[in-house]
């Protein structure tokens, strides 16, 4: 990496013209990419912004409503059916959240929303203490607690139990209250997150869509916003392969497995890779529009095919891990290692082949 700055007015005109000639000749002979700053990528930015990022957060917010309703129902009618529905509502809310982790930047960090929603591990010692206290377990009380006492994993812990074997008879009255208020608090966070991005709220999405506009204070160019998308994909691929899968696998420690209580880890990991897929293809829940794929296709058809195949391979190999992730790290190490290798391969391709194309736009 070396910047060579040519100061044209210091060169004599002839040499400048000759150099130009050489450049033209080289361009004429080779198939070198011609940098084209005039290329407009608004359609990609608009589509990923509106139909992937915003749509995922909207889905998350809608699913959180159902989670609140199902936990309210469970508190009122403590039946096995309502428990099953509540657990499904948790999984359904978890899905768009995991599918948002390919674009985990902006308000989710800046406003400190992530810690309220997805802190892990759960502070079990303090949670027991809160449940055994006289504190009134309202939404506003839960709002005031630290992230390790609320959000997805606290709800998961209370709903599924430490060893995923909790029965309807195991719940206490306080736990039902806590669950409902905790879901209400989570819903507060999903609304805040959606409204931070939404044009009907703080409109952070406009930074993405209008990337390169003179007044855009975040992205000075469309390229920088496109880079952000790809770096976001790389970041989550890295986290899945080298964090979420690697830590429990290498240390043989189930306490390091993130969604163990619900046995949802494989689904979490696959949804993380789907978030890469959604941004890459520019599609979420059947929407149509341009993604990063259209850009890569125009530069390198084979690479585009390769990325898509590797995404599918990664998802498939995660889903093919034998049994639960908890048992597989002991009993089917090769299937876990295979999934890890596939995700690493995808990360490698994104990092060493896709990102350079975007960075050189």
């Amino acid at each position: 990496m070396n910047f060579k700055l040519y100061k044209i007015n210091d060169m004599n005109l002839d040499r400048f013209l000759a150099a130009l000639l050489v450049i033209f000749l080289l361009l004429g002979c080779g198939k070198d990419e011609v940098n084209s700053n005039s290329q407009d990528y608004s359609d990609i930015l608009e589509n990923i912004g509106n139909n992937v990022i915003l749509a995922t957060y909207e889905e998350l917010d809608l699913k959180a409503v159902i989670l609140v309703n199902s936990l309210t129902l469970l508190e009122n009618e403590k039946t096995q059916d309502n428990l099953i529905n509540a657990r499904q509502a948790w999984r359904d809310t978890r899905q768009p959240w995991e599918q948002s982790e390919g674009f985990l930047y902006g308000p989710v960090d800046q406003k400190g929303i992530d810690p309220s929603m997805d802190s892990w591990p759960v502070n079990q010692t303090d949670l027991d203490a809160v449940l055994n206290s006289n504190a009134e377990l309202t939404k506003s009380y839960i709002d005031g607690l630290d992230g390790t006492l609320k959000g997805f994993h606290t709800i998961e812990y209370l709903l599924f139990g430490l060893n995923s074997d909790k029965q309807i008879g195991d719940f206490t009255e306080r736990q039902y209250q806590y669950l409902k208020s905790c879901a209400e608090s989570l819903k507060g966070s999903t609304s805040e997150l959606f409204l931070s991005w939404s044009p009907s709220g703080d409109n952070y999405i406009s930074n993405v869509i209008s990337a390169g506009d003179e007044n855009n204070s975040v992205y000075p160019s469309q390229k920088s916003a496109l880079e952000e998308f790809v770096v976001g994909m790389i970041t989550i691929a890295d986290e899945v392969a080298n964090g979420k899968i690697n830590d429990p696998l290498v240390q043989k420690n189930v306490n390091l497995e993130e969604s163990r209580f619900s046995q949802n880890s494989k689904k979490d990991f696959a949804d993380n890779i789907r978030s890469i897929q959604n941004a890459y293809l520019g599609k979420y829940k059947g929407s149509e529009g341009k993604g990063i794929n259209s850009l890569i296709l125009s530069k390198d058809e084979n690479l585009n095919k390769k990325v898509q195949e590797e995404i599918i391979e990664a998802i498939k190999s995660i889903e093919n891990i034998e049994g639960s992730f908890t048992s597989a790290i002991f009993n089917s190490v090769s299937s876990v290692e295979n999934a890890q290798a596939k995700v690493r391969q995808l990360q490698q391709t994104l990092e060493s082949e896709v990102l350079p194309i975007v960075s050189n736009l």
Partner: protein
Amino acid sequence: MHKYLILIIFVLSLASCTNEDVYIDPLDEDVYLGGETSIEGFFINIFQQPASNLSQEELTLHLKSDQAFADIFVSAPSTHNSGLGPVFNQVSCEHCHVANGRSPFPSNTDNLRGLLFRISKPGEDEMGGPLAVDNFGTQLQTKANFGIEAEGKVDWSYSYIVGNYPDGNEFMLKNRIFRIYDTYMPWEFTNLISPRIAPPVFGLGLLEAIPEEQILLYADPEDIDNDGISGKANIVWSVTDHTFKLGRFGWKAGQPSLIQQTAGAYHQDMGLTSPLFPKESCENQTQADDYSDDPEIDLELMKITTFYAQSLGVPIRRNFEDDQVKEGKKLFRKLNCNACHREAFVTGDQSDKPFLNNQKIFPYTDLLLHDMGDGLADFRPEFVANGYEWRTPPLWGIGFTKIVGGENANYLHDGRATTLEEAILWHGGEAEESKQSFKNLTKSERNAMIKFLENL
């Protein structure tokens, strides 16, 4: 004819490649602010990228250390990440160093995020450091495990300074007056309070690798050269070497090494004991726990987390060819800003991390203490640093502050300045003359200087 033309073009094109025609503007020699660690790009997660020059092995370690930086701690007993508190400020490194950048200023008093308060009694302890407040220590822990009381709450009111530039344009500076209340034990109004906002964490390994003599070269505590700018080294206690050493890290250079800075943050901010700080932060206070789990974290974790900060990349400058940016940089020099925000250093060759060695870096700091005047004073001494003095903070990456941290990510030690312009206008003391010169610039010159800073 063709042959002839091609020959000419060939010869001329060779000539055009000789060195005399490759022009690198000396103004732009600092494009790679972090030397070979520098990273290119323009995106929100820019502060979270590994250095460019890591070996494969180092990169693997970096990715592992990234997890340590994100790890959330919980109350003991726990099978995982145990030992938080009993009193604390936050539960993970990332909670304060948001996306590895400056903490956004809190939007409400219930969640202070990366804002904390150093406290002490007037006087100094036996090592010359801040004198702990009885029952509170040297930092106010504003959170606590369930069943324990936080040491206190904090709120603030505002004061405003309105002024004019000589050209008639008006400016307004907003300051906060902080108040500690609802403390778990009586609080003396004479206690000293120093608000601090969590700073970015990249580039710290490079700053640690600058040879001590290079830093001391610019120290001029008695202002012998009579330029109005002193530059004083802080000399602080090293808990690892059991001796006094040059302070480099923290808003007042109160920590001599990154590992001590890291262990200190685990200790005071999260309430985690380590081999460096084996006693609870609330030792001898009424709320100390009676668990025998100390040290709660081991030296290995200290080293891994330290490695994370060491192995992050420093972003390169952007748009450095812009005329306005070039003008701004010239003004930055002309106004003598670089007397303290010293541009260049070369790191030594003694680090056991080869990627940090022999790097020409442009941190825009001298790592020395300077009197910044009444406006910025916290009136709380820290070793050699008196109540008016602050360590010059690095400026590299400062242009990404709001891109990374959002609109509430502000400037200066307590996050009072919402813009770079306000940050400049808060300068006083040794920087008074430079600030006055800034005010005397035309509006377009002032804008150029801001543009330059945004470009770092």
